[in-house]
């Protein structure tokens, strides 16, 4: 198996998981695919090192998060669309959680959003999250605290969800 085969096998084995992380970070299918494309271009360039004694999974995850944060720092021009905004409809409670959370996540800073995804979806520890974001554990704690507070203030209806004992424990 040559290096390209190894890279191909690595990505294809984790494609759905990578796509889901990218989608959670960006909130948009096209942006998620673009994010993945630019990150894979970086990963393939480092593959000979990563496939030796490196950790390709951790490197790729870190590249995804950092590239996403870097993108969000750039000004995003308005894009014309002829699509009419969706009208309201009735949803069940779970669907409502999802819709409200998606809207609130979009208003977090890129780093806050990344912390939420890494801590509560990827289930990384504070130390692992700090490693991915290349910041201190204290910074992760603080970002997490502010992110949850901002979610509560943006969407008070998420209060019960964010007051779950496990989450309170995590942020203590």
């Amino acid at each position: 198996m040559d290096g390209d085969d190894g890279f191909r096998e690595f990505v294809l084995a984790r494609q759905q998981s990578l796509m889901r992380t990218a989608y959670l970070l960006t909130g948009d299918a096209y942006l998620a695919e673009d994010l993945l494309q630019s990150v894979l271009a970086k990963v393939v360039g480092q593959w000979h090192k990563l496939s030796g004694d490196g950790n390709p999974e951790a490197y790729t995850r870190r590249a995804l998060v950092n590239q996403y944060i870097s993108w969000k720092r750039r000004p995003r021009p308005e894009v014309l669309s002829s699509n009419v905004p969706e009208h309201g409809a009735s949803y069940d409670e779970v669907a409502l959680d999802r819709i409200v959370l998606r809207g609130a996540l979009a208003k977090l800073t890129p780093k806050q959003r990344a912390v939420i995804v890494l801590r509560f979806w990827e289930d990384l520890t504070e130390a692992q999250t700090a490693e991915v974001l290349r910041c201190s554990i204290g910074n992760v704690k603080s970002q997490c605290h502010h992110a949850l507070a901002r979610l509560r203030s943006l969407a008070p209806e998420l209060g019960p969800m964010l007051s779950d004992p496990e989450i309170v424990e995590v942020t203590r």
Partner: protein
Amino acid sequence: MTRLRDALDDIAAEAPAVDLTRLVDAAITGRRRRRRAGWALAAAATAVVMGAASAAVVLPGQRGGEPAARPVLDLPDNRVGPLALAYMTPCDLDVVRKRFDCSMVEWRVVTSTGTTYRVPQALVRTAKERPAPMAVSRDGRMLAYYSREAQAHVVRDLVTGSETTSPVTVEEERIDIGSMLAVSDDGRHLLFDPREGSKKPGLLIDVRTGRTVPVPGTYEVVTIRDGVAELVRYRKTDLWLMPVTGGGKPVRFDGAFIMFSELAPDGRTVAAFHFPDTKKGKRPRSDLVKRRLSLLDTKTGRALRKVDIRGLPKDGSIFETTLWVNEKEVTLGFRGGKGEVATYAVDTTTGRARLLTRYPGSPRSVVLPGAAAG
């Protein structure tokens, strides 16, 4: 598992199922291209050191002064999302033969998220060296171009990835100087003008049924929207809102106007620039130079008002008026002094312009969504 985790899981589950094979191949190809570019640079450097050559080295992804970003891939067969822009790459200057080499010119498209693809299946120049047009629908979803292989136009839906080849054969020789093309939002209708400003008749094509409606050659297409083709005869100036099935009649404006926008959301106003006639060999400054936009009533032909545009960069010029962003603002295409392209929304009540999108590099032959291109 917490409710937060559940909700995040639900959002993640909305991510479309993907086959990353294409992205993996693209990443590998890109790395190989970058390596080759590195070798080319090294070879060029060696040649310069040895004093052996002075020929220019063209690196992949650096043609025409474009930013040397990611390698440009071919437009994939599956969905890529709506487009923000299409453009034709410029000819290379052959410094040895002192002439332009247009053999590598190609059509490229830029998605609304900023990814650029080349479209090798779209004809760029005919056998007689006439540029072949490309068109993008108003919402950026449909891409239309001429395929030499099919001897017909092709419409690609970039959101679903589906492709429709027009059942109407159009011989390549019909594409003449200044040929134009427009595509409707649903991709069903195309308007092909073989030669802008001539008496050669155009053709409105229903790519679903193959039905065609001839369009008098003296008219040029502005856009197709909601089953109506907006056509302009510039000399007079007449504007004809022609249903795609044919019919309707033109309205004549008082004076000559150029660069028409699509119909405003009110269903009757268009924006354009007054272009005064030459008098005694002198041409007065047009409103395009003065940056003064006219609002015209398509029901009566009356000029409603003029508005001075404020807030555009001093260097550069307006090259197009296109879509209405809302009831007040119309989009202008603007090329800056260094060739950079941007779109601005102009408030037609105050004249205030605000930047919508700035495109990287300085692309030529730009096609904006919703505008007839040629």
